[in-house]
Each structure stands twice: as structure tokens, then as C-alpha cells.
């Protein structure tokens, strides 16, 4: 590959897709976290019917392909009168999908806090709200953080599916460039860029995790 062409033509063109990929990731993750929290709350605190609704949602979105969900939201919803542009449709689809995974990992984090913690809080006269706010959630969020970061990193890669409905993110840009230059090795460059996004994110997560780790917790596990 001609270095000049690579540095001044190919790379800048691909790089234009990076902010779009990041926007897709951050926004769909945020949607997933917001909706996932509600779904987890419905499953943990909700009445039986509400819990069933949440569970059905989760099973549906986990049990069907993300690509099908993207196609349905982009091509299928207009038939029902909801028309979204490709960028928004991608965020909605990936966000709705991610919500189902985030709900489950938030729920299991809450469930992982032992019964004794509730008893101790109750014995001190705390209300249910205070118990969750001061005792359960602060511990559950620490349990959930590594899995949430995993989910975020997974979304960085899943956003490449948005290319299929024409969102000009990193992979779409890569495909343009490959078909324009006939140089399939550009796929490798795209892979390197995804890796360059994901690796520091995982690293950042590890830093975050150790910063907010409960002192003595690791030792207690041994």
C-alpha cells in the first residue's frame, strides 16, 4: 500500500466514520442502560404481571437477531406510521436490544447482594428506599460495572451492523473505500481502529473497577 495514499486519503476517510461509530455506541448504550434499569426494576420490584412483561421483552430481544431488529425498525416501522432515519433507527434498534442484556446483568447484580445486607439495614430501621439507596445499589453497581463495560465494548462492534442500512459509520466507510480502491487489506485497518477503541475502554474499566473496588473484597474471596 502506498504510504502517502494511506495516510492522506484512506485513513482520513475511514476516520470520518469513527465519531459516528462512537455516537452510535454511546447513545445506544445510554438508551439500553435507561431502559435496562427500568426492566430490571420491573423484574425485581414489579408486580407479577409487570415482571412478566419485562421478562417477555427481554426474552424477545435476546432471542431474535439484532440484524432482524434493525431491519424491522428501519424498514418495517414505516408501515406502522413510524419513520426513522437510518442513524436514529440504528440507535433505537441497538439500544432496545442492549436493554435486554443490561436489564439481566443489572438484575443479577442486585440479586447477588446477600439477604443479610437487607436484614442489617432493616434492623437499623432503614426504609426500603433507604436500604436500596445506601446499601444495595452502591454494592450492586460495583458488581455490575465489569459486565456493563463488556456490553459497551460489544456495542462498539455491533454498531457496524448499522452500515447495512446506510449509516456512514466506520465500517460503511471501510466498505466504500474497499470498493473504490479494490484493496481488501483496508478491512484490516478497520479492524485495527475497532481494536484501538475497544482496548483502552477495557483498560479504563479495569482502572475504574480497582478505584471503586470495596477494600478487602478480593482478599475475602480467597
Amino acid at each position, binding site marked *: 500500500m502506498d504510504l502517502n495514499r494511506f495516510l492522506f486519503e484512506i485513513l482520513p476517510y475511514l476516520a470520518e466514520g469513527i465519531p459516528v461509530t462512537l455516537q452510535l455506541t454511546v447513545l445506544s448504550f445510554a438508551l439500553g442502560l435507561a431502559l435496562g434499569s427500568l426492566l430490571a426494576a420491573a423484574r425485581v420490584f414489579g408486580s407479577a404481571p409487570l415482571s412478566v412483561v419485562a421478562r417477555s421483552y427481554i426474552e424477545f430481544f435476546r432471542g431474535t437477531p439484532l440484524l432482524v431488529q434493525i431491519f424491522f425498525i428501519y424498514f418495517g416501522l414505516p408501515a406502522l406510521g413510524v419513520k426513522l432515519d437510518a442513524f436514529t433507527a440504528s440507535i433505537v434498534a441497538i439500544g432496545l436490544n442492549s436493554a435486554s442484556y443490561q436489564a439481566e446483568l443489572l438484575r443479577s447484580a442486585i440479586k447477588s447482594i446477600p439477604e443479610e445486607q437487607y436484614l*442489617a439495614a432493616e434492623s437499623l430501621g432503614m426504609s426500603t428506599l433507604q436500604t436500596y439507596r445506601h446499601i444495595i445499589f452502591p454494592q450492586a453497581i460495583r458488581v455490575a460495572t465489569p459486565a456493563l463495560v463488556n456490553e459497551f465494548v460489544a456495542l462498539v462492534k455491533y454498531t457496524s451492523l448499522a452500515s447495512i442500512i446506510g449509516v456512514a459509520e466506520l465500517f460503511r466507510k471501510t466498505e466504500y473505500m474497499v470498493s473504490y480502491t479494490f484493496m481488501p487489506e483496508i478491512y484490516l485497518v478497520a479492524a485495527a481502529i475497532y481494536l484501538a477503541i475497544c482496548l483502552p475502554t477495557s483498560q479504563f474499566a479495569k482502572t475504574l473497577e480497582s478505584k471503586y473496588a470495596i477494600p478487602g473484597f478480593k482478599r475475602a474471596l480467597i
Partner: protein
Amino acid sequence: MSEPLLLIDGLKAGYGSVEVLRGVHLSVDKGEKVVILGPSGSGKSTLLKCIPYLVRPWSGEIRVDGELVNSDPSTLRRIRSSIGFVFQQYNLFPHMTSIRNVALSLELNRRLPRQESEKIAYSVMSMLGIGELAGKYPLELSGGQQQRVAIARALAIDPKLLLLDEPTSALDPELRYEVVETLYQVAKQGRSMLIVTHEVDFAEAAADRVVFIDEGVIVEEGDAREVLERPRKERTERFLKRLRSKVGNAAT
């Protein structure tokens, strides 16, 4: 005669369909220290947990300072914040420093500002000789230290009644000593205490009264030394003999 601080009448409780407490009557006067003895599975821990409704009784009445305990949330919160509870497994909050553990209920129930509640928390911890642990997190501490922090947490609100559920049972023999010392210290301050424990020496030296419970009913109760030295019921005698030989074995 003044009203007892704690009055339990006809208490029945259990788990699922298994009845654990089969009609317990018990009272504790102000300033009294009562030790509950009994074999494991006898229901003594359940009895203790029923008082602040950590286990919901099936039937019967519990009164704390005359007030009937019931499921009403605000009544429960008020009664719970006037009772201290110490768990066998300490149950400290691992994500908070020791002093936060001790100060939390002052902030949430007494609505004291953080600084003031931590000042009280620190003075309680210093009194128990664990002031230097204030900044440590529970899982950085030994079991004995954790249990002493848990005792400080229960005492922070200056409870009318302190309930202790086998506070030394989860500890190695060499760590039990420091917790028993702490119990003596608390007992000396004249606080009303109801303690489930196998520490016979403590019961003999510090308790006013001993209650022996077996198979969900009180078999025998009376003056601590009298029950421990001259039990009237055969079941009590057998249990004490077994307990003493076990404690003797553990000590050697």
C-alpha cells in the same frame, strides 16, 4: 410494678410449614441482662429475630416499652431504631468504612448531620476501644474487629434494648476473647440486653437471668447462677454438661 421493657406473649413463628417457636412467653425488665441458651435448632435465634420483626411471627404479641410491634412500616421503623441488633455474621456494610457503618443510622433515623453523627460514632467506637479502626473497611478487619464494629453500630443510636444473636459463634476461639471483653464492657453500662450465646462464663458473670429454650419452648428460666449451677430440668442439665465439655475442649 413497672412495665417490662420487652414483653413477649404466646409467640409462634417458623419457616414455611415448619413451626420453630411454639408459644414463647418472655419478659425483660429495664436494665436487665438476659442470656438465652439452647441447642442449635431450638429456635433461640428465631426468637431474637422476631422481636424487631426481622422474622415475622405467626402469632403472639411483642411489646417494646409498652408499644405493640406490628407490620406497619412507620411503627416498625420507630421500634427498630430503638433496638440494637448484633448478628452472628456481623453483617457490616462492606462498601462503607467502619465509622460510616456506625454513623449511618444516626444520619438516616435521627436526621443528624454527617459531621455530628460521625462524632457520636467515633466516641462509641473509642469507648469500645476500636477508635483506630474508624477509617478501615469491614473486609480489611478480622472477624473479632468486625463484630466489635457491629456492636458499635448497634449501640450508636443508644438503644433501649440490645439484642445479640450468637455474637461470638462465627469466631475462632482466640478472636472470641476480644468480643466477650466488649460484651462485658457493654453489660457494665447497665444497658438492657438479650443475648443468645454459648458463652457460659459470660452468662454466669454478667447475666441477671438465664433462659433455656429447647424445641421452640422455654424449658427453664431463672437467676443466672441458679440455672447454670443447679438446673431444675434434666434437659437443661444435659445441655449444660455438653456445652461445658465442648467449651473445655475448644479451650485446650
